[in-house]
Each structure stands twice: as structure tokens, then as C-alpha cells.
């Protein structure tokens, strides 16, 4: 509701809507003087009537205690402002009634006032200020005679007003005195005032009397007086000397005010103030504390101060829900140990109430506990629960040496302290937890940073090539130091082959198995597309033609959500290993070549496993298809010639027994049935542990060598055979020549000639390495001694021939006999004669030779078959399987020889 529209309409609404303004207006308009102060007595408000009464406009916010200019007691003595009733009200926190004061205006006029100061408390009970109503008595006083007025005042006063003589005898006793002390007036009158003096205060009266005699006024002397029933009461004495008309002091009037209530109130106020101050200090300290110990100290200070106890302690539940001392004042170690863990509440107690033991002696507790408490000199104790966030977290204790009654205010303060303490502990714990969490986080961050730095350092120092792409497109790739060094690029340059031109490295290309990889096929780039690339091997080929080989893995980098955000590859430079491998491969290849060239194979027999390994070359030697060897000794033995099996087994057994070298020459039968000679050598690998070891070796096909050896042996045997055969022939010729010719001289010549002819053919054969000689050569040699070029007495004609050794020798001997005969008896024995020899090769395998003589002496058939004819006919027939025909024609001898002619005679 808007007040501006509502105000003019109705007065009730006006009051309701503008209560504050209305109240001020009402106060201002009141015909009674009213002013208000704050708790410090500073004037905060003064209405018009008050200003008129004071004869001045007080300085709002500056003037203190009273709106008046000056104050006097009714008897004219000055009353300081800070002792005025309002000041007392604010200081004592209670209304002050029945006092009169005289206000002096600035114009020196005076007014008798009856102030009614009243304190104002706020909602929490704290003093907020005061309000005073000043009642002007000036008019009333002037309305009645002073004596009547005074008598009336004395009669009506709540205060005891006692008149006494100078010697101390009571001469006046008003109803207030009777109420206060219990003595009726008739009983008190005439007795000494000392009936009111309690024990211990006896020397007061002479002093008061003395001072009164001297005309001195005693103001508000606070002391104790005894009532009739013996109880003591607090009183304030105001003693005024009473003078006679001459001014002589004849007695005194004592106004005795019961200040028990006010004193108690004062004490209460002091307590409250102490409590409030303690709470205030506690609050202030708790705001500033940074550690739990300071909280305990502040709390203990507040507990001791506010609750006025000599000892105190704070206990909190530990992790095991046991109540443990965390701070204490004035408690012995022994006591703490004795009561440690004791708690009237369990940790899960809900809304626990404080417990106050006003007298330990009568408390319902165990004897042991009581004994411990009493031994510590404790008479009363308070348990105040500490609650935080609805949960019991501990307690604080107050200890009093003597039995102690716990006032409601004390309990209230204790609970206030408990609330503050509980809240602070909770706050501190929260902060501590937060600090710990932060510290942990900081430490984590620090350790993460340290770890990251460590990783970077490791990465940099790693003797591996590390490439990192931080984006899936791999347009920028970084690496560690090793990478840059290997790629011969400056540190921090972009290693990506997908980088924009100018940024892209141009000094190398990447190959796999001789094929250049496009950038998108590089392992890192594949990994950056989400692929795990394992065991890649690539060649990095530089401009200068050199290459480095690397081997490694590449893996995608993923963010927390699993998205690929890049990749990292790690690899090692395997160039040296690669070169070694290649060298090894080369050496193996060379070995293979050597084995192949030498028709050799390699093998290995693992005696532990029984496995036999053959090189491909060995399979080839066995004429096996590659990979068909079964890998066992038995499979090998299958190929071995049955006659040589025993030999091989013997040699192997011997080698195993002596661990000596294995050597064996044996035959194998190849799948196509051929027999090949093999020679194998083997050596044991060094024995290690219980292993039988391995026998490794080579095997070569020595068939050709074996055949060559056989050939050579055969040749040697053949040569020996031939030589001896020839000698046997020579021996036979000799025998025949000499036995058939009686003329020794002639026989010697014939033998000589025959041997020379034989030797001649041998020479021809030897010249041709026994491969054979032509018939023409054989004939020429035999006819040469008789051949006369000028007469042209010898004619040879026929196709080229090549006679095997046997043919050459036999035909040579035949030609020798024919030529010798012609020279002795035939055509060559005369100058005109001639010999023609012609030959043909008939039907491809018959050599037909025709020897015909002409121009010689008349031919006579021989009278006997001499050795020459025997040789001619029988040798050719027997040795060559041929036929010899002799025709003794008149014009000359004709001899035809027909022998098998082997066209391609094997040696």
C-alpha cells in the first residue's frame, strides 16, 4: 500500500501507515519533557517540552546524560551530569525513581525536576539506550509550605528517614525506616542508631557522627545495615547535618535507602557486562583465529571470564567416537587421564542438554569418578555440549572449586559460548579440510608439473625417436632432441611431411620396402586417425643418398572423452642392426652361393630334439623338392644307399661318442633312382649344460669326383694293362719272329722293324691322347721308308677315318707286314712298282681297305705261311673280328681287309 495516497483518507490509516513518523510527531507534541539517549548516554532525541524545560536546545548527538545545562542536588550542591539519574540508569541498566534534581537553565533560573529515567533493551536483551521523562515539580513545591511538604515527603518516602541527635540517639523514624529495618517507630525512637550497625561496621558510626558535627554532608555512603531480624541489607546513607537557628549542628537526618536490589542489579549488570564482554571478545577472537589451538584458547578465556570459573576444559570426540581432552586450564594430568573418555552423551546423541552438577558430593555418579573429581578439588561441574551441524562433536566443561548454583543467565551464556565454539571448530575443521584439499591439490599439481617436467626431460634424453602430433591432421609434428638430430633438422622445426610448403622438411623421404610412403600412410598419421600402428619399420632416405632405418610403434592420443586429438610415435634407429642383418644375409647368401657352387648343402642335427635341418641346397643335392625334407634322421636315412647305412650309423655313433668330427662318404639314391656319392663333414657345437648339443656340417655331392677318381683308377689300370699287354705282344712277336726265322740276323732285323712299327703306332696314339689316329697316318708311317715322292710309288686314297687304338695297332701291324713284304718281294722291291691303298667306309660300320701292288716282279704264291702272313691274317681276324683276303694276282698282290668300324668309339 502506498502511504502517500492513503494518508489523507483516514486517521487510523495514518497512524498505521506512518507509525514511526506518527510516534515522533506524538512525542514532539507531548506536553511532558521526554528525551532519549543511546547506550552511551548520548542524547539522540529531545522533544519540544524537554527543550523548554531545560531552557535550551540540547546538542543532539553530543550532549550526554541530560538535556539540562547544569544540575544541582535539591540542597543546592552540584550534581555532575555523569552522576545524574539518567546516567545511573544507563550504567546500572534499571529505572531510577524518586530522585529529585534541580536543573539550572542557561538564564540561571532553576526548576525542580523528578526524572524518570528508564533503560531500553533491544531484542537480545542488550542495553540499547534510555528514555527519560522529566516531571516539573516547581509548581507543586511552591504550592505548599516547605515544612508540610517535607513532612509529607518524609511520610511518603520509600526511603528510611531517620532523625538522630548529635549523640546518635534516634529522634525521628519514618514509616520507610520501619519497613526497612523492621523496628516500629516507638521501638526505635530513643535508641542509639548503632542498633542498625552490623558486626564489623562498628567504627562507621563515630566517623559519621564526627563528620556531621563538623557540618559535613555525607552523600550516598554505601554500607551494610542490620535489620531487626539480624539479616543484613545493603544501604546507601545520605547524612545531612541539622542545624538550629543559630546554625549549630544539633543532629543529623539520615536518609537510608535500601540498595540491596539495586546492588544486586548492579552486580547482575556487572556479570552481564562481563559475560557480554567475554562473549564479545570471544566473537572477535574467533573471527581472527587461524588455527584450532587459538580457538580453544579463546574459548577457554571466554569460559573462565564469562562463567567465572577457575578451571575449564574442552573435549572432542576422536575418530573412535571417544571424548578426548583437546584443551584445558588448571587440570592435572592425573585427573585428565582418570576422566578421559567419560561422556554423559554418546556421539550420536540428538539435541543433548547441558548437564550441571551443582554439588559433586551429591551427584549420581560412580564412586571412582567422584573420587577423581573430589581429589582434583572440584566441587561443581558443568557439561556443555558442543554441537556442529546438528551433530554432537564434544563438550566443554566448567569446574568450580566449591558447590555452585548455575544461574539461567550462566547457562544461557554457556550455551552461547558452546554455539560459538562449536561453530568455530566446525568452521576450522571445514577450513582445514579445505586447506588440506587445496594443499593436496597444490601438491598434486606440483607433482604433476614435476612429473610433466620429468617426462619432458626423459623424452628429451631418450635415445629413441619420439614424434608427437597434437592435431589429428598432423600438420605440425614435433619431436625430441634425438628426432631432430636423426632427421638432421634444427630443434623445434616442423617434422610433418603434411606441413604447408616452406614449413615442411625437404631433406628426407620415407620408404617401406622400397616404396615411398605418402604422408598419410606414415605411421604417426595413421595413428592420428585412430589406428594403433605396431612394429612399423621404415627407411628414412636422405637427399645425400644415405638412409636410416627405424623401427617402432605409433599410438593415438585421446582426450578425456576418448576423441583422437593427435598421435605419438616412438621408434629406434635400427640402421646398424639392419646393416648387420644385411651383412649376415649377404654372408648367408654367399654361403648359399658357395654351397650351391660347390654342390654343397648344410645341415644341422639337434641331438636333444632329434630335429634335423637341411639347407635348401642339401634338398637339391638329394634331388628333393624344396621343403620336402621331413626334418628327421630317419628321413635322411631313407635316401642313403642300403649298403652304406651301417657305415653312416657307425660314423655318427663314433662322432657322438668321441664328440669328434664326423666324416663320412656314402651313396644316396635320389628319387629318380640315380645313385650319387656324398661326402659329409660335421662338427659338434660346444656342449652347454646337460644339452647333447648339435652336430652341424656340410655335405657335398662328390659323384663327379668319385667318377673321376674311378676314371683315373681305371685309366691307370688300363694303362698298366695295355703296357703289360703290349709287352706280352712284344714278347709274342719276339718268340714268333725268332722261332720262325732260322736266320738270326734276318730275324733280328724283322723283329726290330716290327717293334719299331708297333712303337710308331703307339707314338701316333700317344700324340692323339689315345683318342685314335687316321688310317692314312698309319699307312703313311708304314710305307714311309719305301715311299719315293719323285716316282710317286705310293698312293693312298680314302675318306677321313679315325681308328681306335686297337684298330690302329692291329692295322698298323698288318700294314707293316704288307709294306715289308712289298719291299722284299713285291711292287716296292723294284723301281717301277707302286702300291695303291684305297679304303671306304661301307654301310657306316665297315671299313674296307684294298691294298694293291703293281709293277713289281711276277707274283708267286708263298710256299709256306710265314709269321708275316699269320700276323696279317689271324691278328686282324682275331683282334678286330675282321676278314683279310690275300690274292696273289700276277700283276701284283691284292689284299682286302674288311673290319668293323666303330664310328664313335668310346674311349
Amino acid at each position, binding site marked *: 500500500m502506498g502511504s502517500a495516497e492513503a494518508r489523507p483518507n483516514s486517521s487510523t490509516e495514518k497512524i498505521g501507515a506512518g507509525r514511526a513518523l506518527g510516534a515522533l510527531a506524538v512525542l514532539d507534541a507531548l506536553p511532558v519533557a521526554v528525551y532519549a539517549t543511546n547506550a552511551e548516554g548520548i542524547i539522540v532525541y529531545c522533544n519540544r517540552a524537554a527543550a523548554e524545560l531545560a531552557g535550551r536546545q540540547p546538542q543532539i548527538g553530543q550532549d550526554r546524560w541530560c538535556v539540562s545545562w547544569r544540575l544541582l542536588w535539591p540542597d543546592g550542591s552540584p550534581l555532575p551530569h555523569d552522576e545524574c539519574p539518567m546516567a545511573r540508569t544507563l550504567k546500572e541498566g534499571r529505572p531510577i525513581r524518586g530522585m529529585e534534581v534541580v536543573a539550572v537553565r542557561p538564564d540561571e533560573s532553576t526548576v525542580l525536576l523528578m526524572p524518570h529515567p528508564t533503560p531500553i533493551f533491544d531484542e537480545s536483551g542488550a542495553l540499547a539506550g534510555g528514555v527519560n521523562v522529566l516531571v516539573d515539580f516547581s509548581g507543586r513545591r511552591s504550592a505548599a509550605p516547605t515544612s508540610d511538604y517535607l513532612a509529607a515527603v518524609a511520610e511518603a518516602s520509600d526511603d528510611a528517614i531517620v532523625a538522630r541527635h548529635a549523640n546518635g540517639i534516634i529522634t525521628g523514624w519514618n514509616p520507610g525506616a520501619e519497613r526497612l529495618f523492621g523496628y516500629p517507630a516507638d521501638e526505635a525512637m530513643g535508641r542509639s542508631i548503632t542498633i542498625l550497625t552490623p558486626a564489623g561496621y562498628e567504627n562507621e558510626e563515630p566517623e559519621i557522627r564526627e563528620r556531621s558535627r563538623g557540618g559535613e554532608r555525607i552523600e550516598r555512603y554505601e554500607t551494610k545495615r542490620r535489620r531487626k531480624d539480624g539479616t543484613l541489607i545493603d544501604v546507601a546513607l545520605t547524612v545531612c547535618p541539622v542545624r538550629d537557628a543559630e546554625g549549630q549542628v544539633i543532629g543529623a537526618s539520615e536518609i537510608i535507602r535500601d540498595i540491596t536490589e539495586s546492588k544486586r542489579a548492579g552486580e547482575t549488570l556487572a556479570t552481564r557486562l562481563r559475560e557480554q564482554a567475554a562473549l564479545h571478545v570471544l566473537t572477535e577472537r574467533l573471527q581472527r583465529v587461524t588455527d584450532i589451538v587459538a580457538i580453544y584458547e579463546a574459548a577457554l578465556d571466554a569460559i573462565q571470564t564469562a562463567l567465572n570459573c577457575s578451571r575449564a576444559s574442552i573435549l572432542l570426540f576422536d575418530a573412535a567416537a571417544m571424548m578426548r581432552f583437546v584443551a584445558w586450564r588448571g587440570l592435572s594430568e592425573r585427573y585428565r587421564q582418570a576422566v578421559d573418555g567419560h561422556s554423559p552423551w554418546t556421539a550420536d546423541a540428538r539435541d543433548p542438554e547441558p548437564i550441571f552438577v551443582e554439588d559433586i558430593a551429591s551427584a549420581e555418579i560412580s564412586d571412582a569418578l567422584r573420587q577423581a573429581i573430589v581429589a582434583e578439588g572440584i566441587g561443581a561441574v558443568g557439561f556443555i555440549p558442543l554441537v556442529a551441524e546438528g551433530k554432537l562433536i564434544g563438550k566443554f566443561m566448567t569446574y568450580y572449586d566449591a558447590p555452585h548454583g548455575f544461574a539461567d543467565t550462566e547457562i544461557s551464556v554457556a550455551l552461547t559460548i558452546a554455539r560459538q565454539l562449536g561453530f568455530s571448530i566446525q568452521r576450522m575443521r571445514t577450513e582445514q579440510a579445505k586447506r588440506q584439499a587445496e594443499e593436496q591439490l597444490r601438491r598434486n599439481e606440483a607433482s604433476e608439473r614435476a612429473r610433466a617436467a620429468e617426462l619432458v626431460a626423459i623424452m628429451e634424453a631418450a635415445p629413441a625417436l619420439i614424434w608427437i602430433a597434437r592435431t589429428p591432421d598432423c600438420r605440425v609434428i614435433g619431436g625430441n632432441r634425438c628426432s631432430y638430430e636423426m632427421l638432421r633438422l634444427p630443434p623445434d622445426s616442423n617434422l610433418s611431411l603434411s606441413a604447408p610448403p616452406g614449413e615442411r622438411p625437404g631433406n628426407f623421404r620415407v620408404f617401406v620396402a622400397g616404396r615411398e610412403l605418402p604422408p598419410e600412410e606414415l605411421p604417426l598419421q595413421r595413428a592420428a586417425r585412430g589406428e594403433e600402428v605396431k612394429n612399423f619399420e621404415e627407411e628414412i632416405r636422405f637427399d645425400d643418398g644415405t638412409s636410416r632405418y627405424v623401427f617402432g610403434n605409433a599410438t593415438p592420443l585421446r582426450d578425456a572423452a576418448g576423441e583422437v586429438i593427435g598421435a605419438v610415435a616412438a621408434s629406434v634407429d635400427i640402421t646398424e642392426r639392419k646393416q648387420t642383418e644385411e651383412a649376415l644375409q649377404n654372408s648367408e647368401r654367399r654361403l648359399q652361393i658357395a654351397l650351391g657352387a660347390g654342390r654343397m648343402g648344410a645341415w644341422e642335427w639337434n641331438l636333444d630334439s632329434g630335429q634335423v635341418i637341411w639347407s635348401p641346397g642339401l634338398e637339391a643335392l638329394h634331388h628333393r623338392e624344396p621343403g620336402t625334407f621331413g626334418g628327421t634322421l630317419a628321413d635322411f636315412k631313407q635316401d642313403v644307399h642300403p649298403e652304406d647305412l651301417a657305415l653312416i650309423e657307425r660314423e655318427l655313433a663314433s662322432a657322438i661318442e668321441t664328440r669328434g668330427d664326423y666324416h663320412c662318404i656314402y651313396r644316396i639314391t635320389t628319387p629318380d633312382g640315380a645313385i650319387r656319392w656324398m661326402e659329409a663333414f660335421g662338427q659338434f657345437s660346444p656342449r652347454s649344460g646337460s644339452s647333447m648339443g648339435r652336430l652341424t656340417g656340410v655335405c657335398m655331392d662328390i659323384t663327379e669326383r668319385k667318377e673321376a677318381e674311378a676314371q683315373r683308377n681305371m685309366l691307370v*689300370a688300363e694303362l698298366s*694293362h*695295355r703296357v703289360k699287354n703290349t709287352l706280352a*705282344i712284344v714278347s709274342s712277336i719276339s718268340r714268333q719272329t725268332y722261332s720262325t726265322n732260322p736266320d738270326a740276323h734276318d730275324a733280328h732285323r724283322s723283329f726290330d722293324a716290327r717293334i719299331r712299327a708297333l712303337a710308331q703306332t703307339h707314338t701316333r696314339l700317344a700324340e692323339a691322347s689315345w683318342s685314335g689316329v687316321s688310317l692314312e697316318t698309319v699307312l703313311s708311317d708304314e710305307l714311309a721308308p719305301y715311299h719315293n715322292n719323285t716316282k710317286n710309288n705310293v698312293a693312298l686314297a680314302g675318306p677321313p677315318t679315325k681308328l681306335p687304338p686297337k684298330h690302329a695297332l692291329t692295322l698298323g701291324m698288318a700294314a707293316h707286314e704288307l709294306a715289308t713284304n712289298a719291299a722284299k718281294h713285291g711292287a716296292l722291291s723294284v723301281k717301277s712298282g707302286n702300291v695303291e691303298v684305297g679304303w671306304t667306309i661301307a654301310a657306316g660300320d665297315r671299313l674296307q681297305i684294298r691294298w694293291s701292288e703293281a709293277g713289281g716282279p711276277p707274283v708267286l704264291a708263298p710256299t709256306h705261311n710265314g709269321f708275316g702272313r699269320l700276323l696279317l691274317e*689271324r691278328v686282324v681276324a682275331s683282334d678286330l673280328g675282321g676278314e683279310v683276303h690275300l690274292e696273289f694276282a700276277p700283276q701284283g698282290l691284292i689284299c682286302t681287309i674288311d673290319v668293323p668300324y666303330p664310328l664313335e668309339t668310346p674311349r
Partner: protein
Amino acid sequence: MTLTGRCRVLVVEDEFLVALQIENDLAAAGYTVVGPFTSLSASIAASRAEHFEIATLDLNLRGEFVYPLIDELVARCIPILLLTGYADSDLPERFRALPRLGKPFDGSLLVRKIAELLPAE
């Protein structure tokens, strides 16, 4: 010489002049020569067809060895005298124990060997 005259000797020798000498020597000693045969096939055929008490064999008959014939004669328990220029080592092992006369040989030695090999009558 009637005793030996009845004794027939198979001669296998491919060298005519050598055979001629053997023939002469044996004939002179009173033996009857069966042969000489100059080829393996002819020799084997003759050995099966002819009657003889002992054989003199050349080893190499124009490149063919007479081993099959030897085996056959050994099986038939017919004494054999090898006439050869080959050395011991050139012979197959099983024939190395056979009586042997190296070429060139002395005629009288040949005759004595033959006589020794013939079973005593």
C-alpha cells in the same frame, strides 16, 4: 704226355699274339687248347658248350670284363688262372684270391701253374 694230352684248357684272350703264345706254350706242354676266345659272349657260350678242366682268362676283353664268366666257373668249381696285366688292386675284392699270372708271363711258369691247379689224378 698222354695224361696231359687229355687235359683241355679253355683259353680266353682277346689279344691274338698273346693267345698265340699261350696256345703254343700249352700245346708244347701237351695240353689241348679250347679257344682262344676273344669276346665275353663267345667265351661264356664256349664255356657252357665245351668240355675243359681248367681255364686261363684274360680279364679285359675289348673293354668287357670277364667277371660273369669267372663267377660261373667258380660256381662250377672249375679251376681258373687269371692272366692279366691288371694289378691286384684293380680287381674286385672277391676275385683277388684267385690264382693269377701277370703279363707278360713266362711260358714255363704258365705251364707249371696250370699243372698245380689241376686236381691230382
